[in-house]
């Protein structure tokens, strides 16, 4: 009896494995499309022409996680470029943004699969250096797409060759949000606070830095501090609720991302201070866009993750075909603030890049 039970359990697990694999293999590959030397879709002036791939190159892409719209949109960027240019792309990610070691291990496993090129979004500046070294030793070209930045010094020290770097600046996100809020508050200014992400993470620390730098530029703004929201909506709400109590004159909250911002907004709403306190978010997730449209969050700063991924694949094809211009080794993708005034136009403009915008 027990043996039967055990056998059936094992069978169940194997079945569990088999289902996603069956799905994975039954996915139809897009038919070979002949693309005659297209111009780059988003940066035609800078990158120029993308050659027709001479074969179906295999490209492995490692993201930070696939939790939340942000990383899913990046995945869409990779996949749309895959269809457009006719290459094969596999996408990987760590279970959560805290899994720095696991991300390295995944990259180790990706290297085992002998990809022609690897795109990585490291969680920290250093967590995947060792694996990148192995990749370089095996002559696999690497593109650093967003997030942590493998600096030229680090590359030299560890024997890593990064072929190209495509990103948006984290500190600039919060600088833009803070600047927008500061201008909105005008000469009057007032008390302002920041709810950061999980302390110790790169995005959280960089956005905190950007906030502090920008606030210091406005004498009429008084920074009352930075609290750890850990990217958590409830925690951010609790913090905002408490701080609103202890600082009745608070005028603005800059969230480290939309989740923290929306949590903080909930507290502002509960306290009945929506007219007094401005809340800003970052990332432009759908919930935040709805919120900006309804005059709740005052602004959000989209991170051009879709574009970055798309551009990365364009660069990848240039590299693999030997048509890459070393002048494009660093590409900083343009950023802007989305607010009530421009959000309708922006949503229309960027519909294809942000999957969540389709409903608006």
């Amino acid at each position: 009896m027990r043996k039967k039970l055990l056998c059936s359990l094992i069978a169940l697990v194997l079945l569990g494995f088999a289902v996603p694999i069956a799905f994975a293999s039954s996915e139809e590959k897009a038919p070979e499309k002949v693309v005659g030397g297209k111009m780059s879709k988003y940066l035609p002036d800078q990158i120029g022409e993308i050659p027709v791939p001479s074969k179906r190159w295999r490209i492995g892409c490692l993201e930070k996680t696939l939790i939340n719209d942000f990383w899913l949109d990046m995945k869409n960027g990779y996949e749309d470029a895959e269809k457009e240019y006719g290459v094969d792309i596999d996408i990987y990610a760590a279970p959560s943004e805290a899994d720095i070691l696991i991300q390295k291990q995944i990259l180790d496993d990706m290297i085992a699969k002998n990809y022609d090129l690897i795109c990585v979004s490291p969680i920290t500046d250093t967590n995947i250096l060792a694996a990148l070294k192995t990749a370089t030793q095996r002559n696999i070209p690497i593109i650093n797409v967003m997030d942590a930045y493998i600096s030229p010094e680090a590359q030299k020290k560890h024997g890593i060759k990064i072929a190209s770097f495509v990103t948006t600046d984290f500190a600039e996100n919060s600088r833009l949000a803070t600047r927008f809020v500061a201008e909105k508050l005008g000469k009057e200014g007032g008390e302002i606070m920041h709810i950061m992400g999980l302390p110790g993470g790169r995005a959280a620390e960089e956005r905190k830095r950007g906030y502090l730098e920008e606030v210091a530029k406005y004498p009429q703004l008084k920074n009352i501090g930075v609290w750890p929201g850990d990217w958590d909506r409830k925690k951010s709400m609790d913090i905002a609720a408490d701080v609103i109590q202890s600082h009745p004159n608070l005028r603005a909250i800059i969230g480290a991302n939309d989740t923290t911002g929306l949590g903080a907004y909930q507290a502002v709403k509960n306290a009945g201070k929506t007219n007094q306190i401005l809340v800003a978010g970052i990332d432009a997730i759908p919930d935040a866009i709805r919120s900006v449209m309804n005059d709740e969050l005052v602004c959000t700063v989209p991170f051009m993750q879709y574009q970055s991924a798309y551009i990365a694949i364009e660069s990848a094809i240039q590299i693999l075909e030997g048509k890459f211009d070393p002048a494009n080794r660093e590409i900083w993708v343009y950023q802007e603030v989305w607010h009530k005034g421009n959000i309708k136009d922006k949503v229309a403009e960027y519909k294809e890049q942000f999957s969540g915008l389709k409903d608006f």
Partner: protein
Amino acid sequence: MFARSRSPFFHSYLGLIGAVVAISVYLSIASPYFLKVANFVNIGNQIAINLIIAVGMTLIITSGGIDLSVGSNVALTGILVALFYLKMPASSTVPMVILGMILGLATGTAIGIINGLIINTLGVPPFIATLGTMGVMRGLALIASNGRVLYGMPKGFESTFAGFIGGIPKPVIVAVVIAIIGVFILGRTTLGRYAKAIGGNERCVRVCGINIERHKITIYAIGGCLASISGLALTSMMNAAEPIAGNFYELDAIAVVVMGGTNLMGGKGTMIGTILGALLLGIVRNGLNIMKVPANYHQLLVGIIILVAVIIGSKRSR
């Protein structure tokens, strides 16, 4: 009877009550904002979610078990309920809203029953069984939501837990009612007595001819059901369901239960201690926020408070 129980009551909870009072006094001197009605509303709201889970956890730990899957349960309940509201037609009508919430409770209860079955029928230790279901349920929450935040639930659902009744926030009322029921269950019902007995000496209870399996499964089902109430309250309060919600809630709940004086080995449990523990942790978190303690020090101080409370508690109980 009351006179007899009064002095041990104060005796056994003196450490916790003392800590709550001491920290409150300190905060009210150090910050002019602590002793405000609005601040107490905040503290209440913050404690409510944790306390609802902790009531179930007290019962489970008293029976000698543990449930690490409650945090994932919170997330999965929220996601499934949100999906129900977003996909079903006419979901903003009152019957559908109620149906959604019933489904949520059923989800949580089912998770609890699954835990109970794995632990009892298959004989897996509770820690490892619920560690496994923790991963599975979190995975399901992520798969079901595709990793996205779900929002746009009907107003009727949002207002279930948001707002006030007679000046008291609704989540606080729910938590207080649940805590009172918890005190009653643990202290005055057969289930509560069996929980203590099973936690104290399972073999002995089994020899007495009592159906341990049924009671244990009931206890895990209650724990799961309460976690899903917490999930509903969280989703409603936040106006959105997140697949990563409830991360580490299990550790918070366990900390609160043990700070209150419940024995992790089972056999001895106190619901009132759990309530006091939740109050202490809530006040500390609130204090860290209103006192503007730098971000990096929050974890450090919370850890110290937990340890100190447990050490003081252990001295009292001996």
